[in-house]
């Protein structure tokens, strides 16, 4: 019934179209292009033509010959990818479970509800770099963590020489802490939208709390859970500033990138002028995220209740 008013719509959209064109799509296309260039130098904008090697290098399958020795680049495939996957598969499920429990808890109480709700939201309004610095103090060899858990001081979590798995543990603690508030809030507003009659029904059936949780709450929250899963998985795949905030560097020793994430590698590649390899990694990351998100939609299609 409404007629198409093309020109008017585009007029309204002009600022957004221009800005996205200049600051998102053009750089994006530029990046994809760079991934296929040999020896791209962003200082000069020059390159030595088309190549597929950047992808091979990043994946550690194409060697570079140097003075007769084949050299394979392993930091992405052996460090950045496993680290990123670890962050994704540890922090996302754990933070979803914890925040869901907190949200359900908050939803079932009367006293102190507002104040607790506010407290649980506070980490959201903090700066990743600043709070990362706080966690660095907490995980210091002489820090609060060791003290609270009675671990002999100094035990190093993130300092030079720390075992990468320990540093990864500290990182995951920090990421989960920092990602709780958003999830709690989303789940809580989802819970508040659930019709009381479902709970009343469950009460009549005298279903236990756990049963109610598993059979009523979770299915009815499934749109929020799907939304949170997708956004957190994407967020976890792009983890960078948490590492920067907590460690301020890419590993637990100089010249060691054992705390690389994929995006950290991409960032580093700009600093050392191997943007073409970083671009290839960015393209691969994009494909991974896309595939992953697609799979989640596909799997959840029948499980999500609207």
């Amino acid at each position: 019934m409404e007629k198409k008013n093309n020109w008017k719509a585009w007029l309204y959209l002009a600022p957004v179209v221009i800005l996205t064109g200049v600051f998102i799509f053009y750089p994006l296309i530029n990046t994809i292009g760079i991934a296929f260039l040999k020896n791209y130098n962003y200082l000069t904008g020059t390159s030595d033509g088309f190549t597929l090697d950047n992808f091979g290098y990043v994946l550690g399958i194409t060697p570079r010959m140097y003075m007769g020795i084949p050299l394979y680049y392993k930091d992405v495939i052996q460090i950045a990818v496993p680290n990123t996957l670890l962050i994704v598969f540890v922090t996302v499920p754990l933070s979803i479970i914890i925040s869901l429990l907190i949200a359900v808890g908050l939803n079932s109480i009367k006293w102190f509800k507002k104040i607790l709700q506010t407290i649980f939201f506070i980490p959201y309004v903090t700066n990743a770099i600043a709070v990362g610095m706080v966690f660095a103090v907490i995980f210091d060899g002489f820090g609060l963590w060791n003290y609270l858990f009675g671990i002999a001081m100094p035990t190093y979590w993130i300092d030079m020489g720390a075992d990468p798995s320990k540093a990864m543990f500290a990182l995951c603690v920090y990421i989960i802490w920092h990602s709780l508030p958003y999830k709690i809030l989303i789940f809580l507003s989802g819970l508040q939208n659930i019709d009381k009659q479902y709970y009343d029904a469950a009460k009549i059936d005298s279903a236990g709390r756990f049963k109610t949780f598993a059979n009523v709450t979770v299915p009815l929250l499934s749109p929020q859970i799907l939304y949170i899963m997708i956004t957190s998985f994407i967020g976890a795949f792009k983890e960078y500033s948490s590492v920067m905030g907590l460690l301020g560097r890419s590993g637990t020793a100089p010249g060691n990138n054992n705390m690389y994430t994929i995006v950290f590698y991409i960032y580093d590649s700009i600093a050392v002028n191997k943007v073409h390899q970083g671009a290839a990694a960015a393209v691969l990351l994009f494909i991974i995220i896309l595939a992953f998100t697609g799979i989640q939609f596909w799997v959840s299609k029948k499980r999500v209740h609207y």
Partner: protein
Amino acid sequence: MKNQKSRFPSLLVVSLIGVLALVGCNRSGDSSSDTTSGSSYSEEPPINEYEGNLLEHEASITFWHTMGAANRAVLDQMITGFNAIYPNITITHASQGDYDALRDKVSAAIPAGTTPTMAYCYPDHVADYMSAGAIQNLNPYINSTIFGLGLEDDPTLAGPVSDFIPGYWQEGREYMTPGTYSVPFSKSTELMFYNKTFFDAHSLTVPTSWEQLIAVARQIKTIDPSSTPFGYDSDANWFITLCEQMGIPYTSLNADEHFLFNNDQAKDMVEMIKGWYDEGLITTQGSSPNNAYTSTQFTEGKLYMTVGSTGGTRYNFSTNFEVGVAAVPQYQGSTKIISQGPSITVFKRATDAEKIAAWLFYKWISNTRNSAVYSVLSGYNPVRSSSFETDVYTTNRVVTPGTESELIADVAAFVPAIEDWYFVSPAFKGSSTAREEVGGILANVLLGLKSIDDAFYDALVACVFSSEE
């Protein structure tokens, strides 16, 4: 410094008027489009006729550096002095954070065409910038008969090239293309600081070679088993200095084989250090698990000897014991110590007037007196031999016994003795990576995070993959 104003009436400068055949590179509208095969740096830049005089030309120049607040204040004083001579030149300067941040900023500014006029630099950074065609060869300025170095009646009082410490001056010429692409300013070297009180009490001899050092370290270990006798602050410097002293290939200017460090001798050397580390005799900053500089550990009494930068002399001062100063231990009679600290480079993109202004400013801040002043106030070394003889450097130095100024004075007194020992490693695109990576080898091996072979392989991979194919 202010009284120098009267010594250089503008008349003197006006006398410079005339046919000022000022040299400099054409401001090629877009220097980033210069393609960069190394050969585009010719020794003979286009010479422009520069009309008018230096005082009539307004020039605004920008200087990027990494100075902290204290050193910025010294620089501001120098600018005041400079503006008394050249009121037509406006100098803006800004700290860009640390050296890496500065390099990143400049690297981003080059394609964007927003480079400053001049900047602090390390040779490896300059090599990077040069690959983008961004750096001005300073030879024409140095050799200019109008405003070169060592001219009579020079209002900036800049002495001849021969007055510069040779090692420092040479650093700006160690690039793949002939020319002078950086000039020394705030230089430092490494020295060994030792706990003199402890050494005297146990009548220990200050070691001059690594052999002696280890012998002394073992003695110390028997006296104080809980200590680590020796620390070297910079892992990379230890690796590079030992290579230089022992004649082990590290890097070369040959484009096909820049990275030579992956060899058996170097691996043996690292194994040797690892042995000392496992014995509890030595440590480095990179392998100190709590991230501590060895100078800090030294002042806390956990170490009895530490090698650190003269630029950081004050961090080796302690009120608990007397600190002695000695040269870095040598290998079988070698005389090699690393030269470090930032130099200054000038960017091609600036206009002729700006580049000349930058050059004049450099001459001013690096003259005998100013170099001495900066040295005394900052702790860096003077870049000119003549600075050592100035009253600023010697008699007028304010030394309060029992404070860090005393240690700084000790270092100042010691430094002239090792003036000829400085070496620099070749600078090329990727040499900064090599430096970082060899430091990483040492740290990772000592910490036991990587095996020696893996550490060397990873370092080489990192170097090769960040260089061009």
